[in-house]
């Protein structure tokens, strides 16, 4: 382990030296372009880029607007100044380059940034020109350090574990062999008294023991059978493999996106709704790669997640290169997890919107689930328990005030529960 670490550190050192010499070479060959690019300029440029440009531009990838890497070489500096400050005016004035750009990018208007000074724009351009090298260096270091280091550590751990286990098995085998030897020796020495019955014969002769054992076995069997029968048709813990590995942990946990952002119809309809792919594309048109945390033990690395995002693109027919929809769509066959029997009526809007119950009450800690599973048993007893315990918020419901007061008087309580308001009537859910 130490050995590999030393090597990788050496490699890093080597790559840094190599990069530095490369940078030095580049600097000596092209001194004019790069000499002014000290870190502060690039840092300022990055901040400006992230606040003003990054909504529509990426450095190395086409987005709403073109990739900005190398923009300073493609266009004249003065032209860029006036374009960034007021592109619409240039298009209106009929500047040929401006009009061509406007047409190429689906006539999307670039917001004018008159507040940016020449210096600001220079900084931004310095950042967009510099980025490729930073990316290269980052790739080099991760190539020597990141992916090779952690998996080898993990592999070494696994191999060690396997060796230990194999050793254990071998040891146990020898111990067992030894014990058997001792046992046969003892047995050959031990001569049972022929007058004493073997234990099973003694057991059969004792009727009370036989009777109580039979009763005990019968009861245990009955209990087991009852347990088995009661879990039939209950899918608690059901965790199917979905066609796209959608992680609720990342979306609603790490990124704190509200459940109802995607499951919008839970507010207004019986169904909570499986989000259509255009809702995915609200964000994933912009987010094409996963750059967050990895779970290497489970095999979920960044490449894995990025590949899952590409599955959305394939299904919705999004051409990432040209940033257009091709119209070639495929269905995504999500596997339904929560499914009530046909003879029960359940309404999401009534629970999530009207009663204001958290989604987690029934669906569990979804924001922690990497792979979604059914949290609640969804049995009638489970529904009824909640209806008995949950008190209803009656504030701001003057229309029913009289009814509520009479009910409170009838049951002699301050807070009415769902059950007391008729939440246990059969026909509320079965009709």
């Amino acid at each position, binding site marked *: 382990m130490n050995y590999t670490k030393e090597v990788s550190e050496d490699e890093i050192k080597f790559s840094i030296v190599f990069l530095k010499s490369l940078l030095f070479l580049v600097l000596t060959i092209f001194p004019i372009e790069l000499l002014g690019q000290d870190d502060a300029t690039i840092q300022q440029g990055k901040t400006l880029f992230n*606040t003003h440009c990054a909504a529509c531009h990426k450095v190395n990838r086409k987005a709403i607007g073109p990739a900005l890497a190398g923009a300073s070489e493609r266009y004249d500096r003065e032209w860029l100044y006036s374009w960034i400050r007021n592109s619409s005016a240039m298009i209106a004035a009929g500047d040929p380059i401006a009009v061509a750009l406007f047409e190429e990018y689906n006539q999307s208007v670039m917001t004018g940034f008159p507040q940016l000074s020449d210096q600001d724009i220079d900084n931004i351009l310095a950042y967009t020109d510099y980025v490729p090298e930073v990316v290269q260096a980052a790739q080099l270091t991760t190539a020597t350090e990141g992916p090779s280091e952690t998996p080898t550590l993990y592999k070494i751990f696994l191999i060690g574990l396997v060796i230990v286990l194999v050793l254990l098995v071998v040891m146990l085998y020898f111990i067992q062999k030894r014990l058997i030897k001792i046992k046969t020796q003892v047995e050959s020495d031990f001569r049972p008294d022929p007058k004493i019955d073997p234990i099973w014969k003694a057991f059969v002769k004792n009727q009370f023991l036989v009777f109580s054992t039979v009763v005990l076995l019968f009861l245990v069997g009955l209990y087991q059978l009852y347990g088995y029968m009661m879990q039939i048709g209950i899918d608690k*813990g059901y965790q*199917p493999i979905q066609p796209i590995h959608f992680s609720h942990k990342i979306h609603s946990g790490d990124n704190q*996106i509200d459940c109802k952002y995607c499951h919008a119809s839970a507010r207004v309809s019986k169904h909570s709704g499986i989000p259509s792919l255009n809702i995915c594309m609200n964000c994933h*048109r912009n987010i094409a790669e996963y750059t967050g945390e990895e779970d290497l033990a489970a095999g979920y690395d960044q490449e894995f997640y990025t590949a899952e995002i590409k599955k959305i693109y394939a299904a919705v027919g999004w051409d990432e290169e040209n940033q257009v929809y091709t119209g070639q769509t495929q269905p995504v*066959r999500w596997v339904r997890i929560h499914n009530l029997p046909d003879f029960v009526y359940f309404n999401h809007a009534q629970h999530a919107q009207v009663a204001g119950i958290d989604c987690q009450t029934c669906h569990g800690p979804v924001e922690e689930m990497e792979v979604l599973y059914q949290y609640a048993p969804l049995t009638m007893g489970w529904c009824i328990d909640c209806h008995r315990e949950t008190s209803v918020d009656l504030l701001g419901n003057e229309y029913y005030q009289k009814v509520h007061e009479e009910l409170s008087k009838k049951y002699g309580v301050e807070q009415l529960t769902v059950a007391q308001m008729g939440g246990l009537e059969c026909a509320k859910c079965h009709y």
Partner: protein
Amino acid sequence: MKGVKFSRYLLLGFLFLTGCQNKKKPNYQLFPDMYEPIGYEAYQESAAFRDSISALEPPPGSIHRGWNPYPYPNTNEGYQEAKLNLVSPLDSLEIDLAQGRELYGIYCAVCHGEQGDGQGILMQREKFLGIPSYADREITAGSTYHVIYYGINAMGSHAGQLNENERWQVSAYVTELKKELDHQANSNAE
């Protein structure tokens, strides 16, 4: 020796049984014809449609109940016209800022931030960048509505998640946020 062998089989049997408890498959149902509906369920696959998708877009030209025509096209001109001419049909009594705030919190705040300053959680986590503060943009209730309806640049359309009234409620709330932000900016400047 026999006892040892028997317990071995028992252990194997248990392993076999636990192997059968498959979380990837739904459980048995006692009387499936009581559980499975005869009528169609939402999203159910049907051979009647292409790729068996029953969740289809409405046929072109169809109008759902309560639909109002929206005359502004999804173009730059449409946006400018909506900004100038489109006004909320809600009067002061119909505007429900509490509802607007709730919906804004669900659909907008992840990016635009609770205050509308563009500092939502997705911005802080650098998933989305360059989200402008409402204070830095010339927006009206009409242009906000237009953008919720069609989306703009990296922002997608939210017309599928919010109905007409809800879109206007959110627009009203965004206008309110912008007022507050402008007020803050002015008091800071002084």
